[in-house]
């Protein structure tokens, strides 16, 4: 008799003995069918019948790719993912926005490894569509809101910027509205839609501080910087000078070893580590030093946090400590009982991730996960925890702690302070329910 409940026992992956139709049956939720298949296959294995038979064709017989000539080098000058990876794409959330040029495409976190987002899967958020700008025709202007705030108003070409001393740094970028659909209740099925306005890249560029020094900014009076985009929306955001003075804010042209992608601001964007994505102004055309915040449209109409008393918090910017389990996650099905590597991402706009705890019982008990290196400030950190699923209902959660000691809050704690009508800055602990059938779904407790 096969023991299905023996914890810690490693089982063969089901595709070893389930054909495609059978796997599809599991995906469709017909698990009774799988149980029978498991028992039959297990019984066969235990008598040795399968092992002693001929074996798998793909091992016993030469395969076409091993018996024919493959494609030449540079068949595709810019390499693309395998055709078998087409499922992992940026996707819109149906019904979230009505105009696709002012919309969001979410990153498929459920299928991503490590901490770096493939540049083609970086989330997109545009306010007035994107363009592929000719870098030779792009300019960056740096000026003051009047002549007393900056001595030398200047114009730089991309050539100029690429001649300056450069740094490369890995940082996460998260939209302030990430997880915003979940303030009131569960609204979307998968981690792509709950948390997919999140990406992480190595950015290369010039420290804004160096350029402001070069232009003679008055840091005593000029306590704010306005960043302005070159797209139709001319998007503007105010950046506090403290962030610029820290040396972290970059005028970036590089992303993951190549130039920025057009959707991500080619040829120049602002990088403001720890701050929500809207401040990372794309197609950056102008920096202005000023002595007051600018009350831009994205600081007065949007990216404001509605509080229970009807006031809006303005200039909310920092992405506080947050984490999410990406596997297993909502919309997936566990094929079998047994061993799984629970893994996910943690990040904080205030510093490094110090620790991540994982619960499989809805937050009653927690175990500390392993953090994979590197663990960098204002960068995604990958965590993992081994887990043996015994076939019973479970609720998976992760809870991150950052270097300031701040602990990622529960949804009810956030709601107690900020209510349920906000859109922005939801960094609550995410819960994924695992049903006895293996289906994983998005829940709130």
């Amino acid at each position, binding site marked *: 008799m096969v023991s299905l409940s023996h914890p810690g026992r490693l089982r063969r992956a089901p595709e070893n003995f389930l054909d495609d139709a059978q796997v599809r049956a599991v995906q469709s939720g017909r698990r009774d069918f799988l149980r029978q298949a498991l028992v039959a296959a297990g019984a066969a294995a235990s008598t040795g019948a399968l092992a002693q038979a001929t074996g798998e064709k793909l091992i016993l017989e030469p395969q076409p790719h091993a018996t024919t000539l493959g494609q030449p080098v540079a068949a595709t000058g810019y390499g693309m993912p395998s055709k078998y990876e087409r*499922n992992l794409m940026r996707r819109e959330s149906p019904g979230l926005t*009505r105009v696709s040029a002012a919309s969001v495409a979410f990153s498929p976190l459920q299928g991503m490894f490590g901490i770096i987002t493939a540049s083609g899967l970086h989330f997109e958020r545009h306010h007035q569509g994107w363009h592929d700008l000719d870098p030779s025709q792009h300019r960056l202007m740096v000026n003051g809101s009047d002549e007393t705030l900056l001595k*030398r108003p200047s114009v730089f070409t991309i050539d100029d910027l690429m001649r300056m001393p450069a740094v490369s740094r890995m940082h996460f970028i998260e939209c302030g509205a990430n997880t915003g659909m979940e303030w009131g209740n569960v609204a979307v099925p998968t981690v792509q839609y709950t948390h997919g306005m999140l990406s992480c890249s190595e950015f290369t560029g010039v420290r804004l501080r160096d350029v402001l020094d070069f232009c003679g900014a008055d840091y005593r009076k000029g306590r704010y910087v306005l960043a302005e985009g070159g797209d139709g929306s001319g998007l503007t955001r105010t950046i506090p000078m403290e962030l610029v003075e820290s040396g972290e804010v970059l005028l970036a042209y590089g992303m993951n070893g190549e130039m920025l992608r057009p959707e991500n601001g080619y040829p120049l964007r602002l990088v403001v580590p720890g701050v929500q994505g809207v401040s990372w102004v794309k197609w950056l055309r102008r920096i202005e030093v000023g002595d007051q915040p600018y009350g831009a449209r994205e600081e007065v109409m949007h990216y404001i946090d509605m509080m229970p008393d009807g*006031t809006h918090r303005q200039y909310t910017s920092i992405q506080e400590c947050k984490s999410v389990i990406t596997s297993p996650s909502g919309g997936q099905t566990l094929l079998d009982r047994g061993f799984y590597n629970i893994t996910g991402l943690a990040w904080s706009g205030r510093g490094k991730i110090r620790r991540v705890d994982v619960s499989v019982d809805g937050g009653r008990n927690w175990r500390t996960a392993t953090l994979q290196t590197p663990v960098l400030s204002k960068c995604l950190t990958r965590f993992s925890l081994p887990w043996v699923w015994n076939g019973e209902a479970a609720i998976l959660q992760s809870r991150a702690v950052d270097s300031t000691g701040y602990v990622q809050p529960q949804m009810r704690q956030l709601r107690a302070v900020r209510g349920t009508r906000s859109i922005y800055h939801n960094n609550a602990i995410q819960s994924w329910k695992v049903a006895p059938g293996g289906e994983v779904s998005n829940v709130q*407790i």
Partner: protein
Amino acid sequence: MCRSDVAAAVALALACTLSHAGPGTGKAPTWPGIGRPATPAEIRAWDIDVRPDFKGLPRGQGSVARGQDIWESKCASCHGVFGESNEVFTPIVGGTTRKDVQTGRVEALAKGTEAQRTTMMKLSTLSTLWDYIHRAMPWNNPRTLGVDDTYAVTAYILNLAEILPGDFVLSDRNIREVQALLPNRDGKSPRHGLWLPTGKPDVRNVACMRNCAPDVKIASSLPDHARGSHGNLADQDRNRGGLRGQVTAASATAAARGGEFAAVKELTGKAACLGCHGVDRKIVGPGFNQVSEKYRAKDNAEAYLAGKIKAGGQGIWGQVPMPPSVTISDADAALLARWILKGTPE
């Protein structure tokens, strides 16, 4: 600063031109050959931001009546004739009262009585509205409204919101008085810890490890009828390893590839057609089914519709004009016309 020695003066001028970093700047990096001074005309062309204290606001004026004319030709197609439309963007007016104009706080925000937050419910600084119209409107043809036009459209919106009378002329001279009438002018707070990394968090959890939550109840989950709301999740996962995406809808993979009209989805997205036209229903403009029915039997229907797509129009389906689509090529306009005439096939 320059001596009479001509050679030295030329050398110094050259050095100034190359670095334009004058003496005595201390910590400024020395990057000879990088950058050049911005000219006053260039700064005027790009430095168009207007701050809440109205620094940067150019002189000018515009009447409510002039604003109405501009509104109906350039704004109403997306925002509705009265700024009330919820079809393409969220409404601009609605949800504010005369009492709010007096108090400076929108009561409906506190009470939660409005289903949506309109522009006028949230707007706290008039500079923001002026700046945004001037820099980014109309949405598909930004920066084509002049200074006086911007004053006029701003005045008309405030008239629609019953803040300004119909005979008002908004200008740089009276805009501060109008600021003092905004219904939500006192509705914003900068007092929170989310502005700087050193700010104090407002929510505090503790990292309990054992027996933390004795009573775990599921308070919210996705209803069954929403199971397919995001398409077939099995098509959105790698489907390798011990996990598979759930089958939640028919697979869209086959339908999405190939065919004469494969490029249509991208095109309609690029031109933002579907904001105003439903495939099978009227939104602001006619549904594609209605257009097809009207024209499919006519001669040269494809060329006629392609021309309409490019040039825009007004009067055939109503008084709300369709703006021209400047980013669509002739070939793409013809493809869209063919697709509409054939009944928008998948």
